[in-house]
């Protein structure tokens, strides 16, 4: 039956893609770009690795990377390609599907198969709904959400072969790369989240939120505007469709209206407590306990009272 090819320049994500690929294909192939270590590691998971070593092939040149993956898919006779739904992966996807004449599902969080058909489960309408969709075309690209699958375990039968590709003259030139100071916080793993939104009045109250989170053995998380517009918290703490999808035991949600793009990231929490000064905010609909009050005052009191 079908061969499946996976690619992500992030080894951890590639390992997750291998797990996903094993649920839908018979033979799993992987392709790596200028990364010997990744090639070895993926081979140790029992897959056939096509190892590309072409220094001119730059990961920032999405068109060139997509063309290389396309050639690898042809070589592996893979009709289905899996990519990771991180920023680079999603960017490659559109280009690759167009080259392959494939159909594509992005941000896939679960994959089911039914009579040879691959059914992708993904959030739709900004996260308001969950859709089950099938790609009708023979060739398919699925872009899989990070952490939707666990990384593949070590396994036998892997191999590694050098693979040469034709690359056009690079059109995108990287002049500088800076590592981001990535906060190591993992809000997806936290059992308790104190989630703050635009109702937060400033850094002082944020410190109180941190104190409260600590007292509850949890982490502070936030809605997107607090990271992207106000820049009070880092991107790593954003809950929602373009942030993290969390399932804590307890979420204390403060000063957040509950737009769908946010709510999708927290609706699977076991218990939700909401503090909002508007009793009609949509977030109240999806809460277990609702306190209509000024969140900043509540944080001050909680910080003292816990």
């Amino acid at each position, binding site marked *: 039956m079908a061969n499946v090819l996976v690619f992500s320049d992030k080894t951890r994500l590639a390992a997750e893609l291998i797990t996903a690929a094993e649920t839908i294909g018979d033979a799993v192939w992987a392709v790596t770009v200028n990364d010997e270590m990744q090639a070895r590691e993926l081979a140790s998971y029992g897959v056939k690795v096509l190892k590309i070593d072409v220094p001119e092939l730059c990961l920032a040149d999405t068109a060139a990377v997509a063309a290389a993956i396309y050639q690898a898919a042809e070589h592996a006779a893979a009709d289905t390609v899996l990519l990771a739904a*991180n920023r680079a992966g999603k*960017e490659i996807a559109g280009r690759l*599907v*167009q080259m392959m004449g494939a159909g594509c*599902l992005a941000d896939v969080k679960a994959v089911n198969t039914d009579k040879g058909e691959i059914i992708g489960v993904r959030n739709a309408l900004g996260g308001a709904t969950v859709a089950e969709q099938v790609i009708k075309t023979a060739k398919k690209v699925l872009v899989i959400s990070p952490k939707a699958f666990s990384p593949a375990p070590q396994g036998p039968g892997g191999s590694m072969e050098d693979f040469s590709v034709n690359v056009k003259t690079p059109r995108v030139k990287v002049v500088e790369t800076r590592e981001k100071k990535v906060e190591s916080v993992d809000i997806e793993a936290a059992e308790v989240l104190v989630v703050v939104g635009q109702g937060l009045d400033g850094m002082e109250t944020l410190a109180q939120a941190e104190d409260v989170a600590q007292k509850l053995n949890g982490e502070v998380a936030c809605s997107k505007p607090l990271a992207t517009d106000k820049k009070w918290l880092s991107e790593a703490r954003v809950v929602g469709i373009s942030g993290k999808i969390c399932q804590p035991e307890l979420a204390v949600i403060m000063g957040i209206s509950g737009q769908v793009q946010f709510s999708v990231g927290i609706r699977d929490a076991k218990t939700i407590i909401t503090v909002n000064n508007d009793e009609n905010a949509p977030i109240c609909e999806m809460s277990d306990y609702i*306190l209509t009050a000024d969140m900043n005052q509540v944080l001050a009191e909680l910080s003292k*009272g816990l």
Partner: protein
Amino acid sequence: MDIVVAMKQVPDLQQLRIRNREPVMADVPLTFGKIDKNALEAAVLLKEEHGGEVVVVAAGSEELEDTIKEAMAAGGDRSIMLADDKAGDLDSAESAEILAQLIKQVDDCGLIIFGEGSGDNYSGQVGSRVAEKLDLPQVGSVTQIIIDGEKLRLTRSLEDSVEIVEVMMPAVVIVTADLNEPRIPSVSQVLKAGRKPKEIISLDELEQPAAEKTLTTLSNLAPEVNRKRITIKSVEELVEILKTEGFVGGN
């Protein structure tokens, strides 16, 4: 040199209601996606510095003729759109085919800006698909755009690194929400918006038919919400709940 911005008309999800787990789309007003508005703002700022025109391209139902005024009020100079009630629910493949054809009508196009994901589907495919169709280089996750002669200097923000990249124009640039704060149009800008030049075509007038749908949706339902919705009156009560639920005290 003109700057093209591709925008998607989407339902205003703040006004979406769910009934029996089904999204009720009737009467939900249409608007442009939030990140598309960041894309437009980026184009307008570049135009103010370098000249040229901001051309908005879009494809959607016939209401687009009205929705497009939002973009004209916020700084767009003219629009090229496919407005057709048979195009109310395009998938990424169809949108890309149509937008590529509309963009080809802009003669002196230096850069084409997309938002990183639409307000409704957030798949983020169309920008890359269009770049491939037009055989243009692309850079995504862009948080800053600088025009330097024939070249673009772009800041690309990935999860764990920031890259400064250069690319020759014309190029496709896909931006994130954090590169600017879209302006709020003044009343006079809103009033003038309807008079800006526009070109409108229907599906039959496309040079090539839009691609066929590549997806089938088996189901699309809101998850079940089953919450207690208990009103509490004070912080003391909140602390009590935290205690009974086992999050403070006792450990």
